[in-house]
Structures are given as structure tokens and as C-alpha cells.
């Protein structure tokens, strides 16, 4: 029986290696082993078990093995016939099994070959019958290679060949499993059979295969890696005498190559012509050859600028300098404290009594290196050196002493009340001065004595006061709020007073202009006029500030006034009692205006520019740019050729 089993196993040798490599134990091996013991005892129960398979399956107590036995029985019957045929082999098999029980593979026979006379191994033939196919072997469960968890919640685990359910074998709980591992000595050599859903012990052969795999050996126990070489085609007496092919030998095997010859000849020719020097002198030993490089004409281009030469050493660098060059202890300490880059001198002067005592200069290489860094890393700028006396840079101005006489001391100081004086003007004869302050008080002063002669009080602060430049008449204009008042000072001699009154308040008024201006001229008749009130008043268009400047033309007929805002410039003609605004719009805020002394020209200063207009032609003549941020004062030379502007 055992022999038969072994034989049967041998037939499945092809399938075996595949199964061994997989984790699952070979399913076919186990039942047979078991059956070896059980066949005799449970023979009788076979029929019952097989008949009521379905009913009993439910119970876990039922021994699962009984199911498998049924099928095995059937298979065995078939096999019995085969055994007879293989009798001749069996003899050997039995003997082999006894001494090599672990053998899985079919044993080969060693036969002396008829042809070669060498011993050879002969393996038993494989019968290609139904049984030889391992896939059709006696696994009772025929579900195939499917995930077995499909049957997890079913009482059976698959179907046998007859379509009957294969019941799930009873499996103990964890405690049973543990007890089994303790009690059963074979439990550690058993593996879980997925198909049958139960543990099955491994056969000795399988264990042997596992061991071999673990030890990295060939799983075939019979494999001999050190087989003697068998020389089939080589060796003595086995030389090949006859050619393998009858083709004639090609020409290229024995004719020298034309192309090779061409290549070689190319090199040969190059060597002959001297293009290739076979044993060229080594480059390392080649010394630079010098020749008269400056013999041919230099290029016409300018030479690159030479590097600046380092400074030549002074007395301080001498090995034996005059004693005054030696640093004092303070100087030495200071030198040592400063950073090497910030030092004025890179060395400290030292004195040696003899040349033999002079040591090596320890910064020599460092200084040379720094010089080279300067040569190739420092940006160079060509700069023309100024050899001028710095004082020649100062512009020559006339000495103040050559401008004498000029006022050098204060001759008179007139105390004024606490308010700020906004404007002052001196009469053309220089005897009188008039001042206007912020509180709206205009005072007349006698210059020589400094005495206040008269005062006029207005409602708000005085913007400007200007004396008329005519000498035959005497009056001044005062800019307050939106008005310009013309006032005649007191104590005038008779003819001057009448002349003045005639000008400011003539008996017969000049005809009103064709296009009336917004400025109203209103005067008090000469008879009623006094020096207490203004004789003539101009009402300017309303403005938040009083007129900030009043300027008379030199002839005393025209008066220009400057107020805040656009169109703040007005020119008033006293004789015609007419006012006009020369500019509709001025770019920028007008700071100052000025009449040209001789020509009908008019200067207007805005913050930055001075514009010069011709009033007769009404054109812009020039724009002067003095380059001052804010022009604050301006005057014209009496000749009219020069304008002086201050900012």
C-alpha cells in the first residue's frame, strides 16, 4: 500500500515544486498519509458516511476526515489496476523508499547505454492517462482556485466531483487550537489547507524541501552540482575532421585590407610631410622662446592705460629714520588699535642702529599680494589731478571796503507801538517817512528828528504804503482792505497843496472810460478835503487780504497794485481816473510787479519767474528765470537795463 502511494506521488512530480513554493501545503499529500492509518479501522463506516453526507455536515463533532476518505477509496480502486503494470518498477521503488524515505521524485534507473557504453540514468515513463494530470487529482473540493472567503458564511466549502456539497470541517475555538498545539506533537509541522479549510500535517518530503529552500539549496535532493564532465564532442579521438560547411573560404580572410592600407598610408604621408611628428619633444620641457617682439610697427591704437605706480617710500620707511619719525607710545597704541585697512601707514617707523640688525619684513608677501589684488580687482578711474591753489576756487568779489561809503551804524531808532509794521515808504525828498502797521494805523514821521507828526487810523491792517515819486506834488497811497486811499500829508506849502489837490480831485473830472472797470474812484472835493481823511479812494474788487504791494511809475501818474488771487494786478492812472487789469490770467501767484523806468514795460514776478510785458503792445517780451525758489524782492536799475531779484 505504502509503495503504491509512493508511486502515485512520483507521478505528480511535475506539480509538486509549484505547490511547495506556495505557502499552502500540498493538498494531495495529506489525505493519503492519513489514510494509511485509518483505512483498516474505518472501513465499515464508509457507506454510512457517504450516504448521509448532507445531514451530518451540520455538526462540528463529525470528523471531517470521513468525507475525504470516501473519495480516496474510490480513487484507490482505480489505482489498483495500475499497480500491476508497474510491477517491475516497484521492486526498485520499494528498496529506494526504505533507504531514502524522503524522496519525492521518481527514482531513475542507472543503465549502461548501448550506444556510448556509458552508464545513464533512465527515468520511468510518464503515463499520459487521466490520472497523470495533477489538476484532476483527488481533491474532494472542486471549486477551483477561488477566494475561499466566498464560502465564509456557508455551511459547506465547495462541491465535490459529483456536485455534492463538501461540508466545512469542524474547527475548534481558540482554546482548542491552543490545546492542539500543546498536545499534538505534529502540530508545528502542519499547515492550513485553504481549499479544505483545515490544518494538515506536512509530509517528510515537503519538510525536506522547505529545509532545503531555507538553506538556499537546490530543492531537488538528488541534484548533484559536482557531476563529472562528460566530453561528448571534444577530447581525444573525438576531433572534428570534416568541415561543417562546404562553402569556399572568403577572399577577405587572406587578402590584406585595402582600407586599412589607405589609413596607414595617410599617416605615413603626414609623417613624411612633417604634419605629424612621431616623437615630439615633451611640452613640459618646452622653454618660452624670446624674440624681438617690438621690431614690427606697433598698432595705431592707443596703448591701454598703464597701472598706477605705487607710492615711493618716504623718510619714515628708512631703516634708520630721523628720530622725529619714530612714533610716540600714544601714536603706537593708536596705530595698533586701528584696523589694518584704516591705517594711514601700513608699517610703524622703526630705527635700527646697523643694517645687520634689520629683520625681515613680515608683511612683505601680503603687501605684494594686495598690490596685485589692486591691479586686477580694483576699479580704476582716470582722474585729472588738480594742481591748483584751492583759494583760486573762491570767486573774487569786490571787497566790502571798496564799496564804501555805506551805512555802518544806526543813526536813529524810532520806537513803534507793539504792533508789527507792515509797510514803510520815504517821501521823494527824503524828509518824511510813512509807515503802516497791522492794527491799521498809518503814521507820518519826520525823518530828521524821528518824531511822529500825524497818524491815521483805518479799520484793518495796512497792506502797503507808497509815496508818490513826483516832487511837484506830495501825497501817498495806502492799501487797506479793498481800498487804496490817497492821502495828502499836512503842513504842505500852498502851491504844492493846490497842485496835489488838483491832481487828486480835479474840478472837472475826466470823461469816464468807454468800458467801465469794476474799480470805483471816489474823491472828496478839493475844498472839503483835509489831511485827516483820504482825498481819493479806490474800491478794488473784493479780496481777503489788503493789496500787498503798491508801485508807482517813475512819472507818478500810474500806480500798480497787487492783491491776492487771480486778476489781482491792477494799473491805475490817476490823471484819467481809470483802472485796468492788464492780465486776465497769470500763471502762478503774482509776488511783485514793477514798472520799467523809461519804456512802457512791466515786470511781473511770480514765485519762480519774472515775466516782462510790453504794455503798449500787450505782449510777453521775456521770461527770466533767476533760479530762486521764492522771489521776495525785485528792483530795476534807473537806466532800466538791469533788474535785481532776491529770494
Amino acid at each position, binding site marked *: 500500500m505504502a509503495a503504491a502511494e509512493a508511486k502515485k506521488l512520483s507521478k505528480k512530480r511535475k506539480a509538486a515544486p509549484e505547490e511547495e513554493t506556495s505557502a499552502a501545503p500540498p493538498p494531495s499529500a495529506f489525505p493519503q498519509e492519513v489514510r494509511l492509518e485509518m483505512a483498516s479501522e474505518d472501513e465499515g463506516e464508509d457507506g454510512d458516511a457517504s450516504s448521509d453526507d448532507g445531514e451530518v455536515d451540520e455538526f462540528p463533532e463529525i470528523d471531517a476526515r470521513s468525507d475525504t476518505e470516501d473519495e480516496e477509496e474510490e480513487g484507490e480502486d482505480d489505482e489498483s489496476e495500475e499497480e500491476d503494470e508497474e510491477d517491475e518498477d516497484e521492486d526498485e521503488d520499494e528498496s529506494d523508499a526504505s533507504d531514502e524515505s524522503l524522496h519525492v521524485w521518481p527514482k531513475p534507473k542507472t543503465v549502461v547505454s548501448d550506444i556510448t557504453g556509458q552508464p545513464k540514468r533512465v527515468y520511468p515513463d510518464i503515463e499520459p492517462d487521466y490520472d497523470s494530470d495533477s489538476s484532476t487529482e483527488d481533491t474532494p473540493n472542486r471549486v477551483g482556485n477561488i477566494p475561499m472567503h466566498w464560502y465564509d458564511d456557508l455551511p459547506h466549502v465547495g462541491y465535490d466531483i459529483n456536485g455534492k456539497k463538501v461540508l466545512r470541517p469542524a474547527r475548534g475555538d481558540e482554546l482548542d487550537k491552543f490545546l492542539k498545539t500543546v498536545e499534538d506533537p505534529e502540530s508545528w509541522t502542519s499547515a492550513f489547507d485553504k481549499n479544505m479549510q483545515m490544518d494538515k500535517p506536512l509530509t517528510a518530503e515537503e519538510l525536506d524541501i522547505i529545509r532545503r529552500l531555507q538553506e538556499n539549496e537546490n530543492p531537488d535532493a538528488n541534484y548533484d552540482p559536482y557531476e563529472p564532465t562528460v566530453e561528448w564532442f571534444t577530447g581525444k579521438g573525438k576531433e572534428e575532421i570534416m568541415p561543417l560547411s562546404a562553402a569556399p573560404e572568403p577572399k577577405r580572410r587572406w587578402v590584406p585590407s585595402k582600407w586599412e592600407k589607405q589609413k596607414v598610408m595617410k599617416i605615413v604621408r603626414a609623417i613624411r610631410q612633417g604634419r605629424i611628428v612621431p616623437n615630439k619633444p615633451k*611640452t613640459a620641457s618646452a622653454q618660452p622662446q*624670446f624674440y624681438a617682439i617690438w621690431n614690427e610697427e606697433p*598698432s595705431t591704437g592707443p596703448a591701454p592705460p598703464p597701472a598706477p605706480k605705487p607710492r615711493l617710500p618716504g623718510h619714515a620707511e*628708512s631703516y634708520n629714520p630721523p*628720530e622725529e619719525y619714530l612714533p610716540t607710545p600714544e601714536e603706537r597704541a593708536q596705530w595698533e588699535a586701528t584696523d589694518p585697512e584704516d591705517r594711514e601707514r601700513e608699517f610703524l617707523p622703526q630705527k635700527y642702529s646697523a*643694517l645687520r640688525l634689520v629683520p625681515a619684513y613680515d608683511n612683505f608677501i601680503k603687501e605684494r599680494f594686495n598690490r596685485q589684488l589692486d591691479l586686477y580687482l580694483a*576699479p580704476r578711474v582716470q582722474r585729472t589731478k588738480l594742481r591748483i591753489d584751492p583759494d583760486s576756487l573762491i570767486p573774487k568779489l569786490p571787497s566790502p571796503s571798496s564799496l564804501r561809503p555805506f551805512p555802518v551804524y544806526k543813526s536813529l531808532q524810532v520806537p513803534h507801538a507793539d504792533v508789527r509794521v507792515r509797510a514803510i515808504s520815504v517821501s521823494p525828498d527824503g524828509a518824511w517817512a510813512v509807515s503802516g502797521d497791522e492794527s491799521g494805523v498809518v503814521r507820518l514821521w519826520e525823518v530828521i528828528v524821528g518824531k511822529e507828526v500825524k497818524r491815521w487810523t483805518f479799520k484793518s491792517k495796512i497792506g502797503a504804503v507808497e509815496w508818490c515819486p513826483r516832487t511837484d506834488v506830495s501825497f501817498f497811497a495806502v492799501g487797506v482792505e479793498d481800498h487804496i486811499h490817497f492821502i495828502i500829508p499836512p503842513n504842505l506849502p500852498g502851491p504844492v497843496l493846490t497842485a496835489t489837490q488838483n491832481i487828486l480831485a480835479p474840478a472837472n473830472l475826466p470823461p469816464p472810460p468807454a468800458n467801465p472797470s469794476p474799480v470805483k474812484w471816489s474823491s472828496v472835493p478839493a475844498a472839503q478835503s483835509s489831511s485827516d481823511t483820504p482825498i481819493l479812494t479806490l474800491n478794488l474788487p473784493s479780496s481777503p487780504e489788503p493789496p500787498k504791494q503798491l508801485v508807482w511809475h517813475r512819472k507818478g501818474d500810474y500806480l500798480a497794485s497787487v492783491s491776492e488771487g487771480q486778476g489781482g494786478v491792477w494799473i491805475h492812472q490817476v490823471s484819467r481816473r481809470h483802472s485796468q487789469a492788464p492780465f486776465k490770467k497769470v500763471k502762478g501767484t503774482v509776488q511783485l510787479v514793477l514798472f520799467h523806468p523809461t519804456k512802457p514795460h512791466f515786470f511781473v514776478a511770480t514765485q519762480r519767474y519774472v515775466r516782462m510785458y510790453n504794455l503798449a503792445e500787450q505782449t510777453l517780451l521775456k521770461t527770466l528765470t533767476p533760479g530762486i525758489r521764492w522771489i521776495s524782492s525785485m528792483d530795476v536799475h534807473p537806466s532800466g537795463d538791469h533788474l535785481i531779484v532776491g529770494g
Partner: protein
Amino acid sequence: MGRLKQKGKAGAAKAYMTRSAAVKKLQCSLADFRRLCILKGIFPREPRNRKKANKGSSAPTNFYYAKDIAYLAHEPVLRKLREHKAFAKKLSRALGRGEWSSAKSLEENKPVYRLDHIIKERYPTFVDAVRDIDDALCMIFLFASLPSDSKVSPTLIENCARLAAEWQLYVMHTHSLRKVFLSIKGVYYQAEVFDQTVTWLVPYQFTQTIPSDVDVRVMLTFLELYQTLLGFVFFKLYTDAGLVYPPPLDPQKDEGAAGVGAFNLQEAKPNQVPSAAAKSKVVEVDGKRISSKDVRQTIKSISASGSGDADVEMPSVDAEAANDEDEEFVEDTTEENPEDAPDAPAFTTATLPTLKTLSTLPQSTSSKLFAPYTFWLSRETSRPIFEFIVRSFGGRIGWPATSGSGSPFDESDESITHVIIDRPLVQRPNETEAEKERRRRRKYVQPQWVVDCVNAGKILLEDLYAQGKTLPPHLSPFGDHAEAYDPTAGLVGGEDEEMEEDEEVEGDEDVVEGSEEEGTARPAKSALKAAASAEDEAALRAAELAAEAAGIDYGTFEKEAKKAQKKASKAAPAQEDEAEKDMNKMMMSNKQRKLYERMKHGQKKRAEERQNLEQKKRAIEKEKKRRAKSS
């Protein structure tokens, strides 16, 4: 409407290039770029506006002219550097694979660049090259004195030493050395070659070590250029002087540490001169030499007739030199100037001295200052320095065998006139008569004497420099800037003040000494002070009366009053001027004012320096006087 101007398409943005952009454009490593810059003499430029040049970025970078970089892109050396890179790769691969034979053949065909074209490019004319050899000479002399190590190969040092010796030989041969200065750093020499002053610094003979913060690779790259440059310059100098370049080296003498003497200058045979141009040049040079002698003689005669009294310090040197002209000539031909002999026939063929040759004449008349003398170097003095100086000025010099071989005579030679000795004086009781005699005949001087003679252009009195004496200070022949402190001049401005100070000191002493005089001394002083402060006549008279009352004699009063008035008058206009100047300064533009301030600052600093030195000198002299008085 014109085309819109795009930013960064013109102007500074195009004209300048940052360093990283340049490296990127040239496709070389930074080290190669540095090498190229050094060799080609390309240096960074400072753009007028850094922001515009760097496309709006104000990051600190170096700028180069874009054109410079464009020229660099076509540089053959750059191509060679690239080839070298490929070669290095191939070689390392061959070595890595152990293919020794292919590595060897690669090594044999290593790409090597030459710098000839760069020399010609950087120095189009020879004079340009001569003008720029200062740094080259300094480096060559430095490396000639360095020990060789893993970075600095011995062949390099050998080559540097050879070049240094060649230069010294040329200077000695042409007597073109002008000034020498012994500084604490080394010895500065100044020679005049082709009308260019060439100054170089030679370290003292000590072993130098390269500090760790110095990049040797940079120095070696410079040295590469300098070696080539000097090779070409020396070739031209030697051939123009009618000599063979390179001068053959006598290995036996070199073994014996003969130094410069190991080379022997060889006269180039006229038929050996390859080109006609070179020949004509040689002739011209010869003509120059002859004519220079003539010119020198005439100058000498003029100076002798003009200033006969100036020779107090130089006893008979000039006369001797003038008389010895022929003698010296003969001596030269026999001894170490064999080149003069073949010059004689050239005299007949000499061309007239052109303006150029005249201008290249040595300006100084003292180029053969030491010709009548024979020197002996004592063992402790540095032979290379003094051999070079003495021979450059036509003297003969010998040295003991311990200083190297090749001395033309030994110590017992009768012709020795001076011994250069640098050790303290010792008594020698057991001296033989001959030695004593020899001692008497020879003059023993300290090394500084030689250098000071050279710088003064005449033979100075030896007594000041005699062995064991305290040396007078050694001054720089190059001088300082114009208004710097001059240590040779006496204190001019300070004399009066000094006297005054002395008087004051004495006065103080009086006060301390005599307590009974105190009563008179104080009113006297106050009277003098009143005189000093007196401004007008009346006040002066009043002060005079007060002084008389105090018992001061009229002489001292007058002197004091004058001094005070001078001081006052000096101070007043100065103040006025200052005020006026301040007023004028307001009219200056900003730029001008800054320039003015800078100039004034410099002037002030120099004046301060000068004042400081003068003050120190005064203090030292006072100290000396006091010491002399006390001793």
C-alpha cells in the same frame, strides 16, 4: 514721432557688464576668468551711475566694460583654457581607468598657451613695457628668494632667480642704477632705463613664508605674465646693448653660490645679429654711449667752472673722476666691463646723437661714482646688495669665500680702498704689523655710506660713517611730497619761538629761584603785556611809561612792543581776510565748495603732520641740549 526708447537697450546698461554676466558669457569658470583678467590686464570699471549700469539693481557688484569682455571672448588663451579643461577630463579618465600609455600620450600633447600676443597687445611699444616692469621686477625678486614648496615649483623659483640676475647684470652693465634706499621692508632700487624710471623692491635675505591668507594662485598667474614680459624686455635690452640673450650660465660657478657672477655676458657678434634693423639699433646704442661720455665730460667741465665751492664734502672725487676718464675706461675693459672694448671701433661709425638718444642719456653725472675705488665686503654684510650697488657704479668689489665664490680678489689685495663693515669696533691687541698697516690704509665704513654716497651723487666724508659710529639718519632719496617736512632743513620758522620759549623757561626758573625778585618781575611782565596789547600811539606811550616805572630797560621794551605789534597786525588782517573769504565762499557752487573743502582738508592734514614732526624734532633737540648741558 521717434521710436520709443526702451530701458536697458542703450547707455550704461549696455556698456557695462557685471562679473557674473561676464563669466556666463565667456562660459568659463570664475578661476579662468580671473586668470584671463590678470593676463589681459582687464580691470573692473566704476560706472558713473551703478544703478543704471546694473538695470536698476543697486546690489554691490563689479562692473566690466562690455567691450572688454567681448574682446576676451575671442582670446586665444580662452580657447586654450577650454582645451585644457577637456584635456584634464580626458587625463583623469585615463588615469581612472589605468590606461597609462594613453594618459602619457595625452600628457605629452597637453595644450599650452603662449602669452606673446598679449605682451604685444598690452605693450605696443617697448617703452610701454619698460614703464610697466616695476611690479614684475618686485615679484621676480620676491619669488627668487622664496623657498619652493608644493605650490611653488623649484623650476619656477630657478627661473625667477635667473631673470633677477639677468636684470641686475643689465643694470650693472649699463650703469643705469640711480637711487638706492634701505628701508625696513627691503631695499628699493631705482634705475633709469630708456628714460623710464624703474623702481623695484628687493626683500632682505631672509626666508619668506607665504601667509595662509594669500592666494598663491593669483600670484602665480601674475608671475606667468611677468616672466614672459621680462623675457621679452630683457631680450630687447640685451640685444640693444649688443649682448647675447639669455646670458650663458656657468653651472660650476652657480654651484659655488656666485650669484650674479655665475652668468657671463657675451658680446653678440655683429654678423650674428639677424636683421639689419637690429644692427642699426646696436650701432645707435653704441653711438649713444660714446656721445654720452662726451656730453658728460662737457657737463662736468661746466659744473666745475660754475661751482667750485660745492666740493667741500667730496674731496677730489670729481677731479679724479674727470682725470680718470681714460684710466677707468682701460680698467673697465680689463676687468668686468669687457663690452667697452668692442665699442671703440663702433665709435667711428657712430651716428650723430639724435634728440632721442640725447634724452635717453643718464641724467646723473655720477654713474661711475665708485670707479676709482676698490671695495672689500665684510662677512656680515649682504653680498647681493652691495655687489650690485658697487658694480653698478663702476667700483670693484671683493668678498670672502664665506659669502660665495667668484670674488675677483682676496682680502690681502693692495688695491682695496674701502672695507664695508657692519660690526662694532673691537680692539685687536695681537695684530701683525702688516695688518695694522693695511688697516691704516683702508677706510672702514658702514654699509649706509655706500647708499648715501649713491643718493648724494658724490663721495661723502667717511668719518661720519666709520666703523662703530652712530650713523646719521638715512633719508629716502625719493623724497616726500612737496610741502612735507624736510628733515635736512633746519627749523626755520620755529627759531624765534624757540628762543622765546627758552627765555620763558629761564624766566620761570628765575621766578622759582629768586623770591626777592618776584616783586619786580611781576610788574615788568604786566608792563610788557600792556605794550603787546597797546594798539595806538597813546596807549603805547602809556605802556612805555609804565614799563619805565617797572624798571625795564628801553631796549627790551621796544623789542617786545614790536613783536607784539607785528603779531597783532598779522592777526587782524588775517581775521578780516577770513571773514571776507567766508563771504566769498557763499558764492561757490556746491561742487566747487566740496572740492575746496577736500583740498583744504588735505592741506590741513599735511600741515598737521609736518607740524607734528617739527614739534617732535624740537623736543628731541631740547632734550639733547639739556643732556649736553647736564653732562
